[in-house]
């Protein structure tokens, strides 16, 4: 396949920036003419996928639109109707399908999401909070000069800093940031385990580019269904944004309580929930204890399959990473899951509290979950609906993901074990909701070319 033109693709799509702080601005667009003017003015500030030969910039800026936003920009109707149904509806209207009910229902979301007014997402990532402020100020002056949009609100996010260095931990104490897929042509340091399994069942090769980027061949051997015209969609992708509040007090209390009943102890129990020890060691490779030699070796940290662990005695069948990336667990060399991968770009938000600090569920903390995929319904929505809020593909019936599922106090998580006292079978019942959805939406992240067309009102659907 041809080499990707990194200057035409938004950097946020092609790479995790690994910048420690972020701020997401949410805009409501004004009249179409002024909104287009705004896009035109922001265009040369948008960070592309070009490599940073001179070191990381102080901040980056990227942009995405909800369907409402594209409507306000007055893209031609014939083009608008070719956008996928789920994107046209927006995440709020997909709530039933995603299992965003009960405590996660839109009625409980932050008002900015509940009211479905967000037209534009502007993602600022930066090295320091000051850099974020500078970038935001620059954006604000464009807003003021063009009158193209009003700022509805913003969301700060930041990695946890330990000993002066940013980490990839989240609030429950788990190290995150593994497992982003590898796609053909998307240059990044590749690691075995991130692509798809080849026919020999052992070697990992990159996924088709079209699973991330529109306009390229995908895993089904075709160009994925995409909005019309081709130039509007090519090099673009779809993003889901979800603000996931974490009930840290509930989690810590629950883990402490369950640990007393579980023969393997607290850290092993925590590892069984996710499928990795808190430092990131995959329990499939190291079932007894964390092992930094594995975690820090890119050739090992994501390089494993579940074929030798069909019973789930090392990594429980319902553990989080096994649910969302089953690898070879469904047979057929992983071919049933190759089209269900997503690229994650999130950051935590809120104050990090160490184990000895008191916390409350009402404290404002959680993770901003952002995922990129060529098809929201086939990728993100499918994983959320079938693998997180349901368990049939893993033969787990209606059981939901222990950490991410909406249990409402009724959930169950089974840890498969063996006859050793430190690895017993263990059932966690009456699970509470550890994570609550506070809002979000679906966004389209166009290529630089497409942004130009949108800005000039030149989208022509033939």
């Amino acid at each position, binding site marked *: 396949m041809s080499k990707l033109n990194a200057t035409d693709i938004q950097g946020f799509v092609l790479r995790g920036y690994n910048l420690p702080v972020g701020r997401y601005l949410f805009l409501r667009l004004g009249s179409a003419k002024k909104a287009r003017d705004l896009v035109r003015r922001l265009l040369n500030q948008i960070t592309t996928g070009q490599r940073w030969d001179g070191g990381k910039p102080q901040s980056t800026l990227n942009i995405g639109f909800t369907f409402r936003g594209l409507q306000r920009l007055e893209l031609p109707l014939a083009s608008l109707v070719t956008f996928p*149904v*789920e994107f046209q*509806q927006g995440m709020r209207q*997909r709530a*039933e*399908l995603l*299992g965003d009910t009960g405590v996660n229902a839109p009625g409980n979301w932050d008002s900015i999401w509940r009211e479905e007014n967000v037209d534009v997402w502007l993602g600022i990532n930066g090295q320091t909070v000051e850099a974020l402020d500078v970038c935001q100020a620059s954006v604000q002056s464009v807003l003021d000069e063009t009158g193209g949009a009003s700022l509805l609100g913003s969301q700060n996010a930041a990695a946890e800093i330990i000993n002066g260095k940013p980490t990839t931990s989240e609030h429950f104490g788990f190290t995150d940031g593994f497992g982003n897929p590898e796609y053909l042509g998307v240059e990044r340091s590749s690691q075995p385990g991130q692509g798809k399994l080849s026919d020999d069942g052992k070697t990992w090769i990159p996924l088709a580019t079209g699973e991330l980027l529109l306009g390229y061949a995908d*895993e*089904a*051997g*075709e160009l994925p*269904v995409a909005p019309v015209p081709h130039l509007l969609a090519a090099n673009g992708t779809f993003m889901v944004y979800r603000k996931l509040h974490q009930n840290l007090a509930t989690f810590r209390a629950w883990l402490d309580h369950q640990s007393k009943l579980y023969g393997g102890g607290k850290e092993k129990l925590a590892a069984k929930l996710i499928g990795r020890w808190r430092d990131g060691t995959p329990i499939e490779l190291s079932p007894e204890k964390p092992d930094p030699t594995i975690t820090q070796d890119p050739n090992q940290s994501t390089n494993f399959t579940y074929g030798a662990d069909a*019973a*789930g005695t090392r990594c429980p*069948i319902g553990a989080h990473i096994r649910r969302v990336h089953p690898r070879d667990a469904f*047979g*057929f060399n992983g*071919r*049933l899951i*190759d*089209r269900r991968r997503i690229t994650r770009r999130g950051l935590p938000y809120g104050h990090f509290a160490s184990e000895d600090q008191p916390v409350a569920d009402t404290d404002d903390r959680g993770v901003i979950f952002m995922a990129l995929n060529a098809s929201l*319904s*086939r990728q993100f929505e*499918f994983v959320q*609906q*079938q693998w997180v*809020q*349901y*368990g*049939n593909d893993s*033969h*787990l*019936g*209606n*059981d939901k993901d222990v950490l991410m599922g909406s249990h409402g106090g009724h959930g*169950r998580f*089974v840890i*498969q*074990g*063996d*006859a050793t006292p430190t690895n017993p*079978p263990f*059932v966690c019942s009456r699970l509470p909701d550890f994570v609550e959805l506070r809002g979000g939406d679906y966004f389209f992240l166009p290529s630089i070319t497409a942004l130009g067309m949108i800005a000039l009102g030149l989208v022509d659907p033939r």
Partner: protein
Amino acid sequence: MSNINGKVYALNAITPMKPWKTWILRAVFFVLGHVKPLQNDLINLSFIEFARWVIVPRRAFPCLGKGQLPEELKYDYLLFFSNFNGTWNQYIDAFSAVLSKGLNLVWRWSEKFPGSVPVTLFKEYIARVQFDTDYYYTAYPQATANDLKSAHIVQSSFDSLSAIATQSSPEQFAAAYLQFVLEVQAHLGETGEAPAVG
């Protein structure tokens, strides 16, 4: 929507076949029926509760007299009825991804079949030849094929344990119980409602 009842979906499809091709398809089904390993992939996909193909030769449409006009058709017809778990898209995606050769072997004899790969054209064809169900009943709407398999495994282990429960000492029972839990520990999922479809 009456194509769905609980966790199972009723798909109906009818495709025309030139009569001379029907014989080839009959041979294909004969082999499939008698060479069991060929069915392994179907079994491992594990979301089909029941599925059937019915060849209806052009003169075999039931005609009971009493004023009913006999059919005068050029084509034979292949009827397909599937009862599967999951969504329509999920079902077709899975087959296209892992069983495309088998699908082609069955449907290439039907007129205008585009092949099961790539999937978008295949889905368009199915949408065109599918007709909707008026009434769909299942004795176990809350259970998928996987749930049924698990239920049989759990019952079998439970029966074995029950048989020895009264004759063992508490220690013997505790050991047997642990073995029992290890046998069923991957089969304890709840049953209930299917995920909502959009």
